């Protein structure tokens, strides 16, 4: 069987300024990020012949408008359903397009304004919640269940009951990521967060407190993926894509839970990861112990617990205790989301974390640098993963 291992690499990354107030259109932010990614990698605009996007209209920039606005001649374009969860699959499509010769250099573009479209986030404009037989986070507006936060709240409430975990333990997640953001000049939320702050913050959808929920922000990030051969000639140290596995779906799954938790119609069973569940490690020829830092889609803090259990960093029901005492902080056993993530850096739909992985593996992160970083992993509560190495 052919493998995609080490056949593609990220050669350039760029980002706009991140903000909690509307500054520019998503297109302007995305154009800035794109130009900075070109400059970062020493890549010419005319080399970019692929374009992939996961957050398009009405939150972000669509592929057709971006190609037109930036004068790109694209021969491989792909755009998913407008959802953050597709960040990993979108990056994987870029790598697959490059590895199969459908494109030579693919720009992964995310320019997004959550602020100007705030009414879409769980409000009456959130038409996804009206999907026949329910939304993807269990939305059911008939009963007032209307926001993505509710999906994470339903899952963690059951998790609390099954394993005796608490909201105070969950607080370790946003507190860790806030510490990372404090070391990141680009992060929006940099002031210290205490457990008392977390516990006394208002409930959004109980049991989730305000600080369990990601930022609502504007920003853009761009990642350039090309062949490993081309990458070796570019300006910066290439970051190779060593392994991938796809997003999961089906009767064992609920988007915002570890398999088998029993949310919505999700089958209930005791999950233990099999080799098939974790094929990303086999492809990348590493194990969890080789991962110098783990990055995940932290739209809501329970997702951090669920990804740790899904990928076998700890056992089922153990993540609450496992994430205490600085274990997921810089300097801990497994630093996670070292830029501050969606909870404290910005909500660029996860692409800010992909940019962070690349900068970390190049050794560009200054005060928050993970020393000696060689292998880093992107993985989500819904099961996709990509492993990178320098």
């Amino acid at each position: 069987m052919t493998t995609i291992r080490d056949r593609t690499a990220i050669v350039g990354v760029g980002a706009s300024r991140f903000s909690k107030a509307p500054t520019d259109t998503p297109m302007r932010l995305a154009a800035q990020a794109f130009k900075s990614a070109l400059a970062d990698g020493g890549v010419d605009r005319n080399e970019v012949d692929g374009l992939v996007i996961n957050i398009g209209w009405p939150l972000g920039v669509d592929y057709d408008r971006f190609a037109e606005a930036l004068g790109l001649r694209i021969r491989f374009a792909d755009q998913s359903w407008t959802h953050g969860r597709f960040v990993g699959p979108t990056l994987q499509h870029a790598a697959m397009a490059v590895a199969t010769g459908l494109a030579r250099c693919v720009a992964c573009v995310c320019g997004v304004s959550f602020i100007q479209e705030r009414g879409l986030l769980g409000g009456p404009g959130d038409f996804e919640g009206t999907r026949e037989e329910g939304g993807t986070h269990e939305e059911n507006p008939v009963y007032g269940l209307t926001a993505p936060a509710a999906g994470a709240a339903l899952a963690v409430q059951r998790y609390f009951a099954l394993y005796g975990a608490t909201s105070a333990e969950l607080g370790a997640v946003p507190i860790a990521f806030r510490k990372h953001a404090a070391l990141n000049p680009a992060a929006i939320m940099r002031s210290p967060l205490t457990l008392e702050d977390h516990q006394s913050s208002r409930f959004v959808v109980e049991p989730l407190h305000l600080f369990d929920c990601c930022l609502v922000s504007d920003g853009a990030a761009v990642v350039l993926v090309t062949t490993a051969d081309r990458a070796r000639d570019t300006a910066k140290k290439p970051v190779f894509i060593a392994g991938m596995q796809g997003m999961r779906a089906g009767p064992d799954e609920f988007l915002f839970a570890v398999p088998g938790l029993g949310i919505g119609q999700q089958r209930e069973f005791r999950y233990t990861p099999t080799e098939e569940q974790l094929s990303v490690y086999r492809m990348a020829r590493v194990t969890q112990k080789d991962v110098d830092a783990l990055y995940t889609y932290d739209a809501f803090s329970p997702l951090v617990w669920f990804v740790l259990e899904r990928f076998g960093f700890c056992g089922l029901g153990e993540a609450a205790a496992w994430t205490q005492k600085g274990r997921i902080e810089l300097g801990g056993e497994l630093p996670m989301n070292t830029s501050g993530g969606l909870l404290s850096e910005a909500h660029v739909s996860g692409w800010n974390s992909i940019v962070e992985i690349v900068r970390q593996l190049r050794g560009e992160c200054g005060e928050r640098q993970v020393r000696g970083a060689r292998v880093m992993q992107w993985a989500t509560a819904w099961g996709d993963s990509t492993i990178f190495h320098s």
Partner: protein
Amino acid sequence: MTAYGKPLPRITPDNRPFWDAARCHRLALQRCADCARFRYPPAPVCPACLSDRAEWAAVSGQGAVSTFVVFHQRYFPSFAADIPYNVVQVELDEGPRLTANLIDVPNAEISIGMRVEVIFDDVTSEISLPRFRRAAT
């Protein structure tokens, strides 16, 4: 009677029998005519055996809370007066889980595993919503 201002279900050919039964204050679910498995939400084939054959069968309306949340943030203006309001998922004794509200129970007393039973709320002349209350002991 003031107009009902909250979202209403979208009735489709697939789910119409569910809402027709609810209108008559009966809870009915699809049951595979081949493997007898109940399923929800309504779907054209059985997810277990892919059979096209199904019937709408009355279910007990009895179950247990499998998880729940309490909304504190206002997302829909039409729910503003209800805040803080609960939403529960109920695992019916027949297997499928329904999302609904639990009535007549203070939010602080809701717990996972609590036994509940269905009631029907006639919110419009066309639509009766299944909700749940604590089961009679």
